[in-house]
């Protein structure tokens, strides 16, 4: 069984967490009223006045003149979503993030031993979510992601909607076809044929539906029967890989700094290897004794894992950093983590596979020795009679 935990849009929750006084107010998220932007989400009070997601802010203000308009706080929104998923991850690692940002899914099958009573489990999930983001979610439990989401959408707070597998078809039958993921053409076509509820759609056989609407529409037919072929994509909590070293006494020469950076690169590399990850960006923070911290961003063309590769990228940036005071601390943080780059023996792949690594090597050399170090020539035979004019040199 799959449980869908549904909360209001995370940007709305973020706004409530930032300013609790906004709860109960007519609140529209997406931008300020005078801006040319669309409504991302709105509180229930604003919706009661007719505000809908996706309408222009100007229109929303006409519907709800007293509403408070706020832009989306991307960072806070991401934090809320992360908190919701992390909270559910404490119950089971089988957590998936929904396409709707306020939705998250859990597989309950493996929790039967730990939580024999399902209602207690659902109550615990509800309490845990409320404790973290301050909003009580609605919960739907069913045999598939789609049905559980429909159940959660129509459940009331504190009363989970549970759809047993054998009752799925009957449960869906009463809902309008709008709950299905239909494109505009198919919706219009179904409405023209008088098929306005899922129950009516269920009466059509699969081969007949296929003949009438094509192979692509079969997914809709399957969903209407509660059968879902969507793959479960487990969400994994973010990995934070960071190494830091206090410098006692403060360091004021680059040789010592390089030595420490190398050691930190080895520590970061060990963590990356342990997770099977590679990094495409490293952020170095140099904490200076009597000046503001100096952040340095190093980007890589492809995911790096080994200490040598990391240090090769870091070293030239450290040498060129404008350090004005002795350093008290150096921190290396790996960002943009991806699956580790797997190198294959050169015999089995064409060397063109190294195009990215060559581009990266060229970028690093140009960064260290100047852009004119490595160049590419372009010959324009008809450009001019003078040789110098016919050949165009440009940095590689």
């Amino acid at each position, binding site marked *: 069984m799959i449980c869908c935990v549904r909360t209001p849009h995370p940007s709305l929750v973020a706004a409530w967490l930032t300013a609790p006084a906004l709860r109960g107010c007519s609140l529209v998220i997406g931008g300020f009223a005078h801006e040319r932007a669309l409504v991302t989400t709105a509180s229930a009070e604003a919706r009661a006045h007719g505000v809908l997601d996706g309408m222009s802010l100007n229109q929303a203000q006409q519907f709800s003149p007293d509403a408070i308009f706020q832009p989306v706080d991307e960072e806070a929104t991401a934090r809320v979503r992360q908190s919701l998923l992390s909270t559910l991850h404490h119950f089971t690692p089988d957590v998936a993030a929904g396409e709707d940002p306020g939705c998250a899914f859990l597989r309950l099958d493996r929790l039967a031993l730990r939580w024999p009573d399902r209602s207690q489990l659902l109550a615990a999930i509800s309490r845990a979510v409320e404790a973290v983001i301050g909003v009580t979610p609605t919960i739907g439990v069913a045999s598939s992601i789609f049905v559980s989401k429909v159940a959660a959408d129509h459940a009331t707070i504190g009363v989970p909607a549970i759809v047993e597998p054998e009752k799925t078809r009957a449960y869906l039958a009463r809902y309008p076809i709008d709950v299905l993921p239909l494109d505009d053409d198919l919706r219009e076509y179904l409405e023209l044929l008088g098929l306005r509820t899922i129950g009516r759609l269920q009466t059509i056989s699969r081969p007949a539906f296929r003949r009438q609407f094509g192979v692509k529409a079969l997914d809709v037919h399957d969903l209407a029967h509660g059968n879902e072929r969507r793959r479960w994509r487990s969400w994994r909590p973010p990995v934070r890989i960071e190494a830091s070293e206090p410098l006692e006494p403060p360091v004021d020469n680059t040789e010592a700094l390089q030595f420490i950076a190398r050691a930190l690169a080895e520590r970061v590399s060990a963590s990356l290897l342990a997770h099977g990850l590679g990094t495409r960006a490293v952020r170095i923070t140099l904490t200076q004794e009597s000046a503001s911290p100096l952040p340095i961003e190093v980007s890589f063309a492809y995911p790096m894992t080994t200490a040598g590769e990391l240090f090769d990228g870091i070293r030239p940036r450290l040498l060129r950093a404008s350090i004005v005071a002795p350093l008290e601390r150096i921190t290396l943080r790996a960002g943009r983590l991806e699956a580790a780059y797997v190198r294959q023996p050169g015999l089995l792949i*064409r060397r063109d596979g*190294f195009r990215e690594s060559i581009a*990266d090597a060229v970028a690093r*050399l140009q960064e*260290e*020795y100047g852009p004119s170090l*490595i160049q*590419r*020539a372009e010959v324009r*035979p008809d450009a001019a009679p003078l040789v110098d004019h016919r050949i165009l040199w440009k940095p590689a």
Partner: protein
Amino acid sequence: MTGIGGWPVGRLSLLAGPRGSGKRTLAQRSVAAASRESPVAYVDFPNRLDPEFLNYFDARLDRVLVVRPSSLKAGMASVRVLARAGVELICIDLPRTRSAGLDGELPHLLHRAAEADCTLLLIHDAEADDAIRYYASMILAFQRNAWVFRRDGDLEGMLVDATVVKNRLAPPGLKRRLVIPYPIP
């Protein structure tokens, strides 16, 4: 002629000879041919590379990285980094003056080249140092022999005597007389 069907992969080959004996032409033809298959680099210390000449031999100029270093250190660092990044052939055109510090760089260079299966070609106008001669797996010595004229009397090219002075992969001592044609404008 080399006994192994081409330049040795992952090793250093030296093209030696006086100026105008055809070693740079041969190297540039090799670079042009290799550029059709994979990325190549040309480390041009004396700034004598002529892209039009490479173009004449159907080189893929977008795959030829021309390194124009201001110092030996920058040049050697470029070779090491590019070899490790996957460049298959690197041609190093050394300055005519004796390069101090090259002896120390060569072992590192060769280590990188061997590790990455990168072919290194070294062009040296002057009498090569003992260190270069020692680390080179193959030495080709060039000597200009005669001009080649067409029947109508125009200069067609140059006749060059090439000798494999040293070869660690096949028996050395082979001699060939090569005709190096000049590009037709």
